[in-house]
């Protein structure tokens, strides 16, 4: 682990509703993500996972607190600046893949890089490398409707990685996948983290998937309740996550 801070969240508060009738969702989150981290955020329904991710990815604004991405406070950024930041520093993996159905897998993966003005040669080369890594080389000329869910999600992950973002936000990436495809995807994410030194922040309710992360933060009632670190054995980590979940209680599905 290096010491470069990618994200620094300081006393983040988010409430919904009108003044006087506010429902607090995040009640003061402090979290720092360093370069090459692989963090999983878990929590029961309503714990504020999605709200946290939305604020981090600049889709939502916090009520109070600061979020520093690469040293800049994203809560005070203007739209144009924010758009540039999203383009250059952040990669997204969504639960429902969000591949464009009119493009082949190759074009889908190359899209962000190509629209950022990279040369055709670079686009092709990087697409090829990532596809190789994610086991998609033989599917590059297929359209999304010709791919399985797992292949689509791996493709979407390649797309998120192609611009070499500072951090990847993954929102329930295995939410729509079967267990085999989930495992494949998580292994891919793990190897990206280890080999390409990508920084990943993932929100999930699945303990098995969470166990691939290096650190797991468990969120409940708008606060981080505890942090678990993987150690040496993934299976042991998985057991610890499940045990912590049951001790905390609540619906994690």
């Amino acid at each position, binding site marked *: 682990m290096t010491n470069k801070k990618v994200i620094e969240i300081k006393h983040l508060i988010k409430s919904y509703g009108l003044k006087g009738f506010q429902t607090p969702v995040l009640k003061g989150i402090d979290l720092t993500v360093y370069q090459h981290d692989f963090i999983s955020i878990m929590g029961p329904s309503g714990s504020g996972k999605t709200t946290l991710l939305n604020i981090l990815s600049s889709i939502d604004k916090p009520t109070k607190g600061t979020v520093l991405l690469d040293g800049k406070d994203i809560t005070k950024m203007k739209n144009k600046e924010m*758009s*540039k930041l999203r*383009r250059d520093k952040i990669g997204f993996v969504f639960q429902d893949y969000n591949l464009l*159905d009119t*493009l082949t897998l190759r*074009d889908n993966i190359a899209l962000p890089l*190509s629209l950022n003005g990279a040369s*055709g040669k670079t686009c092709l080369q990087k697409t090829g490398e990532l596809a190789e890594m994610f086991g998609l080389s033989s599917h590059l000329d297929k359209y999304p409707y010709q791919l399985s869910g797992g292949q689509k999600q791996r493709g979407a992950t390649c797309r998120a990685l192609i611009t070499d973002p500072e951090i990847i936000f993954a929102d329930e990436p295995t939410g729509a996948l079967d267990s085999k495809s989930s495992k494949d995807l998580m292994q891919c994410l793990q190897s990206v983290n280890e080999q390409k030194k990508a920084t990943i922040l993932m929100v999930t309710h699945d303990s098995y998937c969470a166990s691939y992360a290096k650190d797991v933060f468990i969120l409940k009632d708008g606060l981080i309740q505890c942090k678990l670190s993987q150690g040496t054995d993934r299976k042991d980590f998985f057991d610890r996550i499940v045990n912590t979940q049951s001790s905390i209680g609540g619906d994690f599905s």
Partner: protein
Amino acid sequence: MSLWKLAFQNFRKQFKNYLALILSQAFSISILLNFQYLRFSDSLAVLGEQNQNQLDVLVNVISVILICFMFFFVWYSTNVFLKKRKKEIGIFVFMGLTNQKIGQLYMIECFITGILTTGIGIVFGIMTTQLFQMILLRLSDISIELNFQFIPKPILLTLLIYLVIYLFFILSGYISIVRSNVLDLVNTNRKNEFVKQNSFSLISKTILGIVLLGVGFYFATKDGGIEVISNLLLAVILVVFGTYFILGGLVPLIFQKLAKQKLFLYKNQRVLWINNMIFRMQRNYRTYAIVSVLMLSAVTALATGFSMKTRYDNIMHFRNTYTYQVFSVRSDLEDEIDSLIEKDNDIVVKSTTPLLFLSDNKGVLSYSNLKALAKESRQEFSLKEPKDKEVIAVSQLHLLSLITDLSDIKVEINDESYTQIDETSIPYMGYLQEITEFFMVNDQDYQKLLDQGQQYYTYNYRISDIYNFAASNDELESIISDQEDTFTGRVTIDPDNKETEWVKILYSLCIFMFIVFIQASGSVLFMKNYEDGLEERERYGVLKKMGINGKALRLSIAKEQTFTYLFPFILMSFSSYFSIHALEKLMYANLLPVNIVSVLIILGFLLFCYIVSVFSYFKTVDV
């Protein structure tokens, strides 16, 4: 909740989305109503029965074209309703509604839209009838007092036509819903399979398109006799289908090939818009083909109008070459006629010539006589003297000439065959040229023919004030004789003659049709793009979430739209050259300037539609 209430709610929610469709249908109703009004009102009666009969035929032809428009608009709109409804209606299936009930829901919604459309169309139509007629007559340079008339017949007829078309499509939509299964209903809008098309089928379509266009152009420009008109019809049909196949084959083929060149594709947003074009082209090429044909019709309509107008002006000029024409067996009348006319008028042009009138109603002129006449009447003369057994036709100007191949026609003069080597329509013989077939032969042939017919002398005069023609009319009456040895006749031309007034109206109608055609093509493209925008919303949402910047997305949209507008335009410009060329041959007129101007007008209008379309697209997909 009752079906009616549900349908009404659906309609209210979607009203904004359907406004363009409703207005386009209402517009087609208004225009048709205006034309029906023209047919049933008595505004054109003042032009005389003969003109009115001609115009009735015209209005009927235009009405048929407008009904085709209406058919298309209704087809298109109900199809959009059906597609949207099918997707939303899928949800109702899970609520336990039967297909029949869902079909009824669709019919009720269409019924509400239909009432609104007819309401707007008819009211707007009635409101504009007088304006329309006023503009039409003003353009035609005809002054008639117009009064507002409320005539139920055209309104009922328009309503009936619209309702029949509308009911036909609603019923077919209903049947389509009743027959479809649940899965289809739910998945209608999600089917984005077959993005790419089979290259073989695209190449076949391209070849077919090129062949059809080629053969079409060949027929459009082929010279020929009376079969020209059927050639032209054939050409129109071939060009329409050729356009259809080119847009459905060649264009997607080019884009698919481009999409394979990744080094080319991954530059300047091409990855987004070229892929989008491939996807859209497959669904929209029929619409683009229709737009192409609509624009082609616009250019042709304008060119027809202009050539008719030019021809009309020519005919007027033809008739007014001389004010009086006296023809007589006597050769010594010149001085007498001069003095008779000069009592009340000043002579500006005067010419005399002998001519031979044969028993088969043909007039024969000799080369030297005609040359002398041309000099006297200060008209151009560049004809060569025909050889023996050769003639040059000195003929009238026709409004429409179907025979485009004029060389080597055999002419029978008094049972002897002559070869026609040329034709002129310079008005040497004035009005007489309009009512008699004249042929010019060389002087020797003329001499030979002399004893086979009766030689007359014509005395042609043009006065300085042609509107004062009546003054000398009575004076000239004194020389008229029907005795065989002194036979003398006279023709007087009234410059205010209304016999061919209908041509002037035709000219304005053509301009009007030009406007209707380009308006229709612009709005069809605009509607199509608007509908595409609605469909693309989700995709652009994803792109925005991915952090793709707005500028890149806007550029990509602008480029995609450029091609959407450009393809039908290019195809039209290309085809219009041929259609106008064919028309030029038919009308004996130089229509290239009209062609260029009308193409430029369309370009301007499309540019306007394009800009509105692009900004509306930005708004629809929110970038």
